[in-house]
């Protein structure tokens, strides 16, 4: 259980960065909904777990936040990608692809290795 959560945190950060890259500034609720949508509702996300991840990314300087007003006129905190965040996303995307590629090889038929 605990280990799984850790993996979650890591991938969650990547998902947040990717979402913000695709959609521009968004508030926490919006990010959460978007992640669920993109996953085709196959991911069950406790929205509460998103906020520590957002804070961590902000502290690391990959995202920045400011208060604004939502499409439905609610006051909300909006997050957007910083330049450092973009670079980090690129790096992590590359790493992710490499990891999945390696893992994929293990599940590929024997002779192709």
């Amino acid at each position, binding site marked *: 259980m605990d280990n799984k959560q850790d993996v979650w945190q890591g991938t969650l950060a990547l998902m947040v960065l990717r979402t913000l890259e695709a959609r521009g500034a968004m*508030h*926490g*609720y*919006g990010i959460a*909904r978007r992640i669920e949508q993109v996953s085709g509702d196959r991911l069950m996300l*406790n*929205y*509460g*777990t998103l*906020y*520590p991840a957002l*804070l*961590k990314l902000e*502290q*690391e*300087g*990959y995202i920045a936040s400011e208060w604004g007003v*939502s499409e*439905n006129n*609610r*006051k*909300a*905190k909006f997050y957007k990608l910083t330049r*450092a965040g973009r670079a*980090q996303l690129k790096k992590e995307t590359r790493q992710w692809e490499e990891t999945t590629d390696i893992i994929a090889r293990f599940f590929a038929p024997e002779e192709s290795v």
Partner: protein
Amino acid sequence: MGTLRRFAIRLAGLFRKRRRELELAEELASHLQMHVDDNLRSGMSAAEAWRQARLKFGGIDLAKESVREASTFMTLETTWRDLRYAVRGLRGNPGFAAAAILSLALGIGASLAIFTLADNLLLRPLPYRQPGRLMMVWEVSPPGNHRNVVSPANYRDWKAQNKVFESMAVFREEPAAFTDGARVEELQEQLMSADLLPMLGVQPLRGRLFTAAEDLPNAPDVALISYRLWQSWLGGDDGVIGHTVQVRSRPVTVIGVMPPGFYFRNRNVDLWEPMGLDPARDYRKLAGRYLMCVARLKPGIARDAAQAQMTTIARRLETDFPVFDTGWRVNVEPLRESLVSEVRTSILVLLGAVGLLLAVACVNVANLLLARYTSRRREMAVRVAIGAGRGRVVRQLITESVTLGLAGGVLGVALARWIVLGLLKVAPADLSRNIAIEVDYRIVLFALALPMLTGILFGLAPGFVAGRGDLMRGLREDSRASVGGAGRLRAWLVAVEVALSVVLLAGAGLLFRTLVGLQGVDPGLNPARLLTFRVEIPRARYREPVQVREFFSRAMGQIGRLPGVEAASAVSYLPFNGMAAGTDLAIAGRPPAKPGEGLGATIRTVMPGYFRTMGIPLKRGRVFTDADNTLDSLYRFIVNEAFVEKYMAGEEPLGQQISVAMDFKNPFGEIIGVVGDVKEDALDQAPEPTVYYIHAHLAYAGMVFVLRTKVDPLSLAGPVRRVIHGIDAGLPVAQMRTMETVVRETFARQTFSALLLGGFSLVSLLLAAVGIYGVLAYSVTERTREIGVRVALGAEPGRILRLVLGSGMRVVLLGALVGTGGAMALTGLLKSLLYGVRAHDAVTFAAVPVVLIAVALAAAYLPARRASRLAPMDALRAE
């Protein structure tokens, strides 16, 4: 970069907490609101919309907590909180806190003080170049004194013949009247050969050291002075070099100032002069042994090799000079060894004792912590039950014990300072003379770390017990008494405390019995109301013996007439003062003694009235009168009983003729009286054969006045000073003390050790009593219900009393038994400090457990009485 940035932000996050909290709450509220809005739009009821939004979000408080955790360093925050909680908890339980902190402070303070002393006295390297290669070279006398002073002639032959020492030098110490013309004081002086200071590798602060030419007879008189003398008396400016002062009424030129803190063997020395041995003189004629010799080993030569070669040389000298050197050997002893061997046993014993005390203190604190934990088991269980992590609870416990440890440590360090200052006041003079105690900060750090470690260790112990999955038991546990693991552990700890206390008490008991024994020893004289002081007249102005005799007779006449003086006299060396002349003698009508088998005796020269003034009883014959104290009177001697016993057993001593090798001419003289023995160096040593001269025939220029007074002896200090200065204003009156002080100083070492060990054992006894009380009081509380049942079933109060006392006493008896065994094994180390009592003294070993058990009974009685008075209904109702 991200990590570093994050660290800085989290650090900053320690501040602006309120604002952050508000923002977080607002953000989460807006999140939920938006979710609810969406849910409503998709057609849910208001209640369902809220429910779903919450459900989807997960625990709101959990999310907040993890955001908080990430936004700053929670560890720091919680530590701070734990700390405040711990301090609050300790304040709420001041008895516990005070007991624990005091235990630690006492243990740490005492051990820190003793360690600091030991470090300064035993462990520090001596402040010379390669001090490990410096050796004292002693002669070994035929009777076996391994630290006999050295003959100048033998020294010169050693120096010429040995191949093991790089250099060799001699010195001796004497008091010297010193004056700058305005004021006169007696200072301690070392006379040394010129190669001594270069051998030590010291440089003067100002000026220069002695040259070889200055170390010859009839060379101009030059001196080095101490920094202290330079600063306090001679103005501390550079003009002092080349300045002329008076030493022993001779003009002496100051050629240099030694650096601050420099000393060689004796920290009291303020003045150094070259000795000026005469290369042309045969010192085996008309001179005895009176020098101390120090030498530096050549590189690569071990002490044993040096000892072997010096022994060979001594054998050769024995053949060459049978009269002077037969039976004499050499002892090569490391300089440090020669300095500390006297006090080493005392210090080591104290180190051991203080280690025991520290152990008792730590055990006591462990015990208190365990007791506190036990009474808080429920609180811990509740805290775990409502969601505190186990780690959190353990951390809380550790924070508390570390807080205690730190408080105890800081207090201990402060206490140590006072103890060191106090110790130096009561310490024997040879241990503490002018010593500049330096505190080693590594030791202080160690002292601070130790209680923290104890705190962590014993904070962990209950912590682990708490951590083990017996939460529910902690909650469920009511007063149905189970003296659980903690209870047994505590009983063991008390047994350990008792055992350690027994060891300390036994040591203290033996030393106290020694002290009582020493105080009961008859010194051979009556020290009450005796004033003593020393006056030395300079040879430079009093050349002739008749002048010396005149001065002292005149002074004695005036002093004897002072109001309040009952009797007055003078002696060359006071008994118990650690120094006296000694030499060979011959008895008329007997064949001359074979070389090496001479008859030895201690020699004192006295003025008329000495024996009456000192209260030394006359056994036979008569004492000296004024008529004897003239230069042309016949040589007559008085001897002591030890002399008669050793050399004239069964003979009539009166009328026998003896000749004492003290002077250029040593005519035979008649023994006219026999007086009682006086102890020589110390009360625990046998008296030595002694021959008394009348002052006129052995006119010492330095004499110690002794005054039997009718009033407080020290009240005469002023009047006698005026008398001496009235005769000669240039004379210092030195070492003004009462005879009682002189006698007391001879057992200062034992007093010092006994005092400290006594103090330590009292503290440890107290700690053990607290431990016993704590364990029993707690077990009575735990067993309230059980006791109630017993009472309800008809148990008498006396039976309950015995029950509780018995359970405590089992532990105490076990501890006392083990402790007695330990003490048996350890008190042998005290042997050299004991007098009149054996290391396994039956009285002490019987008394100590009795004292301890009595104290233990008293400590156990309070809780036992409480138990016996429990009203059964109250007891049963007790939760």
